[in-house]
């Protein structure tokens, strides 16, 4: 599904204060997997995501999505950004926000509206179609952004610290939402986070990045009994063990550098 080989990216290459964000990063993600990427803050996680999304051209290495080299944004890829308030369009109703990307999908107006409705329903926002983003709470706005990505029916969904700007309770709700929609839609999800617990709770697999320049320092399979639950999963011995291991990997490399 996603193949990253020997990826590197340098900001301001050539100048004395060039910043090596990524160096020699290799990663492959299987179709249908939910991969969480964790790493210390400022380690180049977002650079990695932007490279996969085709928003920036990495200075070295290559990224393939479904076998095709990424030059611009791949066809069936959607992104949920951290900053929902600036990624949703404030002049459009919630339904129009969700339906906008469907314009290039050869769907007529009615089909687009139905798809938007369905996506909003699946994130628990049925009935909010005619509201505007500013009328919704932060968590609800991020649900709209998720609905927009879902309606688009991507085969790969990238989430860039999607729950970084919401409160703890909403954060747990949204984590469960991702697990739920993931069961309904068959797609690959790559979720970037700096929250170690979240990566273990949500992911099938957790990849730990080093401090910048980022490369993979840990790759763990998460084998927790499902369905996951905010209380019981988090007290499961395997969960406790895994989060400790991920934490050690994140911290160890943050301290060593």
């Amino acid at each position, binding site marked *: 599904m996603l193949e990253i080989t020997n990826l590197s990216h340098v900001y301001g290459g050539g100048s004395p204060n060039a910043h090596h964000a990524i160096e020699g990063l290799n990663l492959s993600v299987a179709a249908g997997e939910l991969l969480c990427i964790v790493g210390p803050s400022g380690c180049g996680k977002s650079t990695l995501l932007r490279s996969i999304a085709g928003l920036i051209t990495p200075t070295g290495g290559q990224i393939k999505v479904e076998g095709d080299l990424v030059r611009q*944004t791949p066809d069936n890829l959607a*992104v949920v*950004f951290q900053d929902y308030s600036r*990624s949703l369009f404030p002049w459009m109703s919630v339904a129009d926000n969700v339906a*906008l990307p469907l*314009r290039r999908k050869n769907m007529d107006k009615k089909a687009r509206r139905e798809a938007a409705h369905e996506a909003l329903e699946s994130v628990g926002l049925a009935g909010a179609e005619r509201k505007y983003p*500013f009328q919704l709470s932060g968590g609800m706005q991020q649900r709209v952004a998720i609905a927009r990505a879902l309606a688009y029916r991507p085969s790969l969904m990238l989430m860039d610290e999607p729950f970084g700007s919401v409160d703890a309770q909403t954060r747990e709700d949204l984590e469960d939402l991702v697990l739920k929609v993931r069961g309904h839609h068959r797609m690959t999800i790559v979720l970037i986070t700096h929250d170690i617990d979240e990566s273990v709770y949500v992911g099938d697999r957790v990849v730990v990045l080093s401090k910048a320049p980022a490369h993979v320092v840990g790759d763990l399979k998460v084998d927790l009994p499902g369905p996951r639950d905010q209380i019981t999963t988090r007290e499961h011995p395997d969960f406790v063990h895994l989060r400790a291991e991920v934490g050690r990997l994140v911290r160890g490399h943050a301290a060593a550098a």
Partner: protein
Amino acid sequence: MKATAEVATRAAIARRDSVARRKGVRTAAFRWLVLVVLILVWETVTRVLGSAFFPPPSMIVVRMYTMWFSGPPSTLFLTDPAIEHILPSLGRMAAGFAGGALAGVVLGLAVGLSARAYDYLDGVLQFLRAIPPPALITVFLVVFGFGLKAQLAFIMFSIVWPVLLNTADGARSVEPLHLQTCQVFRLTRAERLRRVILPSTLPKMFAGLRLAVSLSLIVMVFSELLPGTTDGIGFQLTFAKSQSDLTAMWAGIVLLGVLGYLLNELFLVVERRVLGWHHAAQQLTE
């Protein structure tokens, strides 16, 4: 738990709104009071002084009524002089505004969307904007001769700059994450322009248009003060002055003030409709 929190927030918002509304009513009452007091002071001072150059406002209003608004119902109570002078002025202003605003929006988008065009042209545009339009009136008269064409060209030239520069500024400052979202969902250029860039530009564009509205009234009157003009509010002003009819002159001045006020209010109504999302979102972040 969450539901009660939501109810509480709603109640807080409702409370805040009602407080704001009461405050608004009081402000409006005070505003009228100030206006009434000022007019009374004006009336008293002019009556005490008794100068022919400064007729009291009551006389000016009566004159405005007899001169312009005492016509038959068939012409919406407009008199012949009103039809002959006020309507051409408004027509000039509307045509000049429409032409200048359209040119400003189109050129502003073109300049704002190309970083290179903006870098190259910014200085030139600031220079052109800085020229006081009346200084160029002779140029327009030489090119177009006396009459309507020169007047319209003059009004358009005067108002195009605030619209152009504000629109360009707006088109340049589109939220980067909005553009990245467009890129991720692979919107076409046309969709991106129409559904994302244009709406993002609207708040600044409207700031420019609002300047243009007040400016168009000013330059419209100025263009009617020129020789070769035979109608318009500006023409009536010069004519009244040449006849030493000071009350008629003051009537023209007051009419222009009222027109300026009404046009601004009208503009605000339109802006509130078009930019409702913007104001609401801004209030929330304050």
